[in-house]
């Protein structure tokens, strides 16, 4: 049955791709030779602006475009960007991941899409980033503190997904993206349509994805010492699906531009059924193994809606920009009710939450920002302000964080001074204010409480009404020096992060980990100081880039595992308490490329990170989710073949060292050797080029563990061999 299904998908994919491509051929043939409409412009613009930005920006910025994503396509946006040194992920199965930049993640890395700060439930390790990677045209990754640009949370770095370039005037066209993956029998498609007359335009996209359980190179995994037999290497219930809509539309004139963005990303994906977090679970094998495409309990369902408008206009030498936005993140986690702790054995019939709804989080965010960019002599100055208000409601039978509202406001100014062609100076200051208001919450069930040898039952209060305010002043200074082939940069900056509701007020048992997580209302805003350096050498056949950094946190917020167990609030579980400690971190990334011939090159990408807690009860330990050192060795062959455009073959070998530097409750992770093969090309078809990319990830079906995977603690290996075929077929209807 399973085989039949996967074969069915393979043929379905092939057939569909053939059909669509033949349709495009017929559409393209009659039209005249005209310049390519959207694609070419993008590439030209990207190449220049990214390089210029790198030379003028003193922070370490990496820019990639959609062809990079296509060539390295993974299950989710962050997985596709993992080839960049310093960028890793915390992944959850095959379709979800969250960014991990130089070892920092969660609320310490921010994601910005079309200028709007993405607000989901970043605090959870099993909460992936709700971004459609097909809708991403260009991503800028800032590996370092960028609070002065984005405010609170950008302590570790930022992933900035740039707005799509506008279609050229008087065009109407689109593209079809098709993707098939062998490992989890995934089929994905994304259809784009865009058009523009002189000034009015629209750009729309629909993405669908459907995947089955992913496969690992083993038929038994050990959740603790309990052996879980896997049916045909499938990780039971890790299937999922996604449906996304995007529309941007507006007006673009000479001095005035206004764009509305609308997007809705919806995902539903299963968690590995034999474990609920760390708890081994007995499952109905017959039910689960009937199909590898169904999504049974436990699973998560997330919807992320964004609506925003960005308006910019020129007045004299001022460029003004305003942005107004709304987003809603609605996350539900479903799981069979199991009475942990003092919960009643039988789920009450009159409960406020459905029996299978374990957790629910509903977040609304309204935001507004305005900025003005102007030049005075050789100073390019930007001043601006952002405001954001969010409201968070909770639901479900399990309590982790209270409902809360939050208000943030920030004012900033930065100055880029062009001393001469070679020297640039950057300076920025920013002031932020934040207020968080948490709501009281009581358990829905009673727990026994002992006082003076008397035991009585009580509805425990999990959180109190609590309001906290924070303010912060951050700054950054830097310099760039670009004498010809060499470029050097240095930046020293501070950044901050406001504690989140979970850190201030959580007071419940996280049964995914069997731990009682205890917030700390006395936490200060987290601060960070970082020195970043960058050295780059570029010549015809050789390029080299080294980006070291040193980072210090006087008060890093850390969930400390204690040796205590708590019987009342923790139902007998281990107590984890939020504390602040001094952290010292340093590391570097290296990238180099050497061309033996015009068509043959070798590249090396390496990263190293060291973190140490310098105070507190875990003095001497590292931080959780510390990526081990790794080296990527790549061989690229880009021959000239007459009927193909930009064909490439690449062979990558990634060596990831062992990670013995751990902190409770982590486990040491052995080294791994993984090989990837990729090839592809653009095929000339009239005036539009179809691009085809093929990847074989984990070529030798190696069994290995990823230290930063959500499933690492229960020893789930990473996906086995995965053949990924993706195709992009652009078309133009009229011009």
């Amino acid at each position, binding site marked *: 049955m399973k085989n039949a299904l996967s074969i069915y998908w393979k043929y379905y994919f092939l057939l569909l791709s053939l059909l669509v491509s033949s349709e495009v051929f017929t559409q393209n043939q009659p039209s005249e030779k005209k310049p390519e409409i959207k694609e070419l412009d993008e590439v030209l613009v990207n190449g220049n602006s990214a390089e210029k930005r790198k030379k003028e920006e003193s922070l370490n910025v990496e820019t990639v475009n959609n062809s990079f994503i296509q060539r390295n396509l993974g299950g989710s946006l962050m997985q596709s960007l993992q080839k960049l040194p310093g960028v890793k992920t915390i992944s959850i199965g095959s379709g979800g991941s969250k960014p991990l930049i130089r070892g920092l993640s969660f609320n310490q890395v921010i994601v910005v899409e079309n200028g709007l700060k993405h607000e989901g439930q970043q605090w959870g390790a099993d909460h992936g980033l709700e971004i459609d990677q097909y809708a991403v045209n260009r991503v800028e990754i800032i590996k370092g503190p960028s609070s002065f640009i984005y405010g609170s949370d950008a302590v570790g770095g930022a992933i900035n997904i740039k707005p799509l370039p506008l279609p050229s005037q008087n065009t109407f066209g689109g593209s079809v993206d098709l993707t098939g993956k062998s490992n989890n029998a995934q089929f994905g498609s994304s259809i784009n349509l865009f058009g523009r007359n002189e000034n009015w335009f629209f750009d729309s996209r629909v993405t669908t994805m459907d995947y089955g359980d992913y496969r690992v190179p083993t038929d038994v995994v050990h959740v603790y010492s309990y052996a879980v037999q896997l049916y045909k290497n499938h990780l039971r219930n890790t299937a999922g699906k996604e449906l996304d809509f995007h529309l941007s539309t507006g007006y673009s004139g000479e001095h005035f531009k206004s764009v509305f963005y609308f997007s809705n990303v919806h995902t539903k994906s299963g968690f590995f059924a034999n474990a609920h977090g760390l708890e081994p*679970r007995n499952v109905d094998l017959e039910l689960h193994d009937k199909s590898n495409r169904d999504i049974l309990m436990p699973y998560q369902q997330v919807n992320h809606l964004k609506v925003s408008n960005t308006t910019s206009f020129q007045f004299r030498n001022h460029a003004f920009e305003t942005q107004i936005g709304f987003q809603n993140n609605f996350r539900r986690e479903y799981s069979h009710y199991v009475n942990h702790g003092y919960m009643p054995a039988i789920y009450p019939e009159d409960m406020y939450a459905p029996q299978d709804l374990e957790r629910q989080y509903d977040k609304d965010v309204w935001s507004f920002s305005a900025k003005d960019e102007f030049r005075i002599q050789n100073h390019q100055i930007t001043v601006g302000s952002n405001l954001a208000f969010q409201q968070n409601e909770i639901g479900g039978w399990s309590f982790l964080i209270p409902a809360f509202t939050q208000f943030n406001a920030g004012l900033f100014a930065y100055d880029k001074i062009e001393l001469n062609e070679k020297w640039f100076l950057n300076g920025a200051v920013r002031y932020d204010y934040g207020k968080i208001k948490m709501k009281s919450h009581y358990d829905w069930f009673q727990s026994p409480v002992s006082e003076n040898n008397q035991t009585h039952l009580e509805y425990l209060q999990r959180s109190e009404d609590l309001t906290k305010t924070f303010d912060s002043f951050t700054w950054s200074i830097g*310099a760039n020096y670009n004498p010809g082939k060499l470029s050097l940069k240095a930046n020293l900056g501070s950044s901050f992060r406001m504690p989140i509701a979970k850190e201030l007020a959580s007071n419940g048992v996280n049964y995914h980990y069997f731990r009682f997580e205890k917030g700390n209302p006395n936490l200060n805003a987290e601060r960070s100081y970082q020195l970043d350096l960058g050295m780059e050498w570029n010549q015809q056949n050789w390029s080299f880039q080294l980006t*070291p950094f*040193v980072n210090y946190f006087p008060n890093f917020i850390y969930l400390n*595992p*204690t040796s205590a167990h708590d019987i009342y609030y923790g139902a007998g579980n281990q107590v984890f308490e939020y504390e602040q400690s001094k952290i010292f971190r340093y590391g570097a990334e290296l990238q180099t490329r050497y061309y033996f011939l015009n068509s043959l090159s070798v590249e090396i990408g390496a990263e190293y990170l*060291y973190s140490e807690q310098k105070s507190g009860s875990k003095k001497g330990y590292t931080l959780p989710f510390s990526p081990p050192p790794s080296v990527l060795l790549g061989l690229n062959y880009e021959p000239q073949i007459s009927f193909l455009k930009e064909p490439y073959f690449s062979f990558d070998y990634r060596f990831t060292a062992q990670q013995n530097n751990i902190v409770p409750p982590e486990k040491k992770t052995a080294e791994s050797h993984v090989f990837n093969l990729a090839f592809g090309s653009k095929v000339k078809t009239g005036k539009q080029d179809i691009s085809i990319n093929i990847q074989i990830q984990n070529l030798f079906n190696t069994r290995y563990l990823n230290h930063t995977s959500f499933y690492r603690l229960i020893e789930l290996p990473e996906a086995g061999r995965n053949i990924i075929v993706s195709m992009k077929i652009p078309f133009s209807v009229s011009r």
Partner: protein
Amino acid sequence: MKKIQFLLGVLALAFISSCSSDTAEIDTEYPVIDITGANAFPIQCSTIERGQTFTFKATFTDNVALGSYSLDIHHNFDHHTHSTEVASCYMEAVKKPVKPMLFINNYTIPDGLKSYEATAQITIPADVDPGDYHFMIRLTDKEGWQTLKGLSIKIL
């Protein structure tokens, strides 16, 4: 150029100072729950009678120092949770709980011990539902490493 040399110097210094920092050994070992001893009770598939008091016995060890432990007995009538053990026990059919036993308690271990013979008296009330139960032992060491053991037991 001087500025660059200065910055390079700062970085080099920072690297050197960080590398030469105290390299005190940190504890990365989990504590161990040993129930293989002759006196250990309960073990996987043990049976306990209602209305009686039994003595929990296990040996805890750690490479540095033990922390604390907690015990938890809850029903497994729905066969949802599974023990951490290799051997599986004979299970009764799935049934609805009426008055299942629930026991949760935490215990301290004297400071600084590397090995500890844990004992605890637990009374099973006479009126609880008989059937399949789960006996959970959670042990921490001083640094916060936690070891879990989930045993399947039967209350008769």
